[in-house]
């Protein structure tokens, strides 16, 4: 009865998965550019960012066509509205990966820094959150979405650890302070990527339950977006 609609929703899922994969690649490439000093990786991250922007427009027009032609209601409407919000966060993730790649270009080709190990962990954790959110959306898995939201604590803790490591580095060798600050900015971008992934996961939860978490008051109970 609604084969065509289901096909279009399936296409939307595939395109979102593709966008999620682009984000992960961008994060991994940016981290490699930063930590392994590989300029080719910076190029990949920046190219991915352009592709991510294009993919955002592609998915947006797919959602617009779905809204216009199918006039979805209930969970279908929530899925499309969530997709529209999610691509905005993924677009920001792409930007931040590109920002990290830009930082890597400023860094000299000197020897690797001690703080780098936990920046790599941060990059892996952030990419994992993006992947987890998109997969939760496609599988309509509320628990997986909540796991992503929880996992942001890991990224936040890693960020604090990186900060301490870089502080210690500056204390020992003031000459490396400029580079340490660049790395701190990169770490902050990764921390922000984690926050965007939390937004993704919250949208997934909304598409499943119809409820969104109150942003201003963490202890507050969830509220309905409509009515």
């Amino acid at each position, binding site marked *: *009865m609604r084969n065509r609609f289901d096909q279009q929703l399936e296409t939307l899922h595939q395109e979102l998965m593709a966008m999620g994969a682009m984000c992960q690649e961008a994060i991994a490439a940016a981290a490699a550019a930063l930590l392994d000093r590989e300029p080719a990786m910076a190029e990949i991250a920046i190219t991915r960012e352009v592709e991510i922007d294009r993919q955002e427009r592609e998915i947006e027009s797919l959602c617009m066509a779905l809204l216009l032609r199918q006039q979805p209601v209930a969970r279908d409407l929530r899925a499309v509205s969530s997709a529209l919000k999610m691509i905005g966060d993924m677009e920001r993730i792409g930007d931040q990966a590109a920002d990290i790649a830009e930082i890597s270009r400023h860094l000299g080709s000197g020897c690797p820094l001690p703080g780098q190990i936990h920046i790599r962990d941060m990059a892996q954790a952030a990419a994992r959150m993006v992947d987890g959110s998109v997969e939760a959306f496609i599988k309509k898995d509320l628990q997986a979405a909540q796991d992503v939201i929880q996992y942001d604590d890991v990224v936040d803790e890693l960020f604090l650890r990186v900060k301490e490591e870089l502080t210690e580095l500056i204390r020992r060798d003031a000459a490396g302070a400029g580079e340490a600050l660049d790395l701190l900015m990169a770490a902050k971008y990764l921390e922000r990527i984690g926050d965007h992934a939390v937004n993704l996961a919250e949208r997934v939860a909304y598409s499943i339950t119809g409820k969104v978490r109150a942003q201003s008051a963490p202890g507050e109970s969830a509220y309905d977006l*409509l009515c």
Partner: protein
Amino acid sequence: MAEQAILSARDLDFFYGAAQALRHITLDIPAGRVTALIGPSGCGKSTFLRTINRMNDLVPGTRMAGSLTFQGQEIYAPGLDVTALRRRVGMVFQKPNPFPMSIYDNVAYGPRTHGERRRARLDELVETSLRAAAIWEEVRDRLKKSALGLSGGQQQRLCIARALAVEPEVLLMDEATSALDPISTARIEDLIGSLKERYTIVMVTHNMQQALRVSDRTAFFLSGELVEFSPTERLFSMPRDQRTEDYITGRFG
């Protein structure tokens, strides 16, 4: 402002002979609001609409049980004046059905039936009703012309004017725009929005987007049962019942 129920059904059953068309319907229709009744063909939504002004009385072998009240009065009370009920509860049908007479006489028909003979009063009722139905400007210069010369959309607005002329409290609309083009439909939907300030409107529609556009509350019927009755945005965004979800998203059946 608290919503006051103008119509209340309690455990309402309705039968056509042996066939049960409504099963234990319990709902309160708020005054001054638009309530949409949706559901697949044969679900009981039109039967429910027609119990409200006892249009089903015309079908032989019908029987009801339970309670259905209008302003606290039992609609199916023995000895109830059905003509008086239908003056207070007007109805507009799927197909425009103007009488083969002038535009003026169509609108004046109801008030005349109810005994109004004063020419000035009739003139006033005709004009206010045609204005309320958003058709006055189009017909003011041809009131004595046959109503059958109007377009379908104009005829339907004329029928709404005719229903309003007896100053009802409730207006029942049974798929009142399903035979109209999109522009006429939009006009009538606008009209419904302006009428609800003064009337309670209960409408049956197969067009879910129309229910979304114009109604405050939506009732979903299935197999003679009321599955869900919620504020319209709630019903179409987060239905409580899986059967509602399946129906409105087209997964039903």
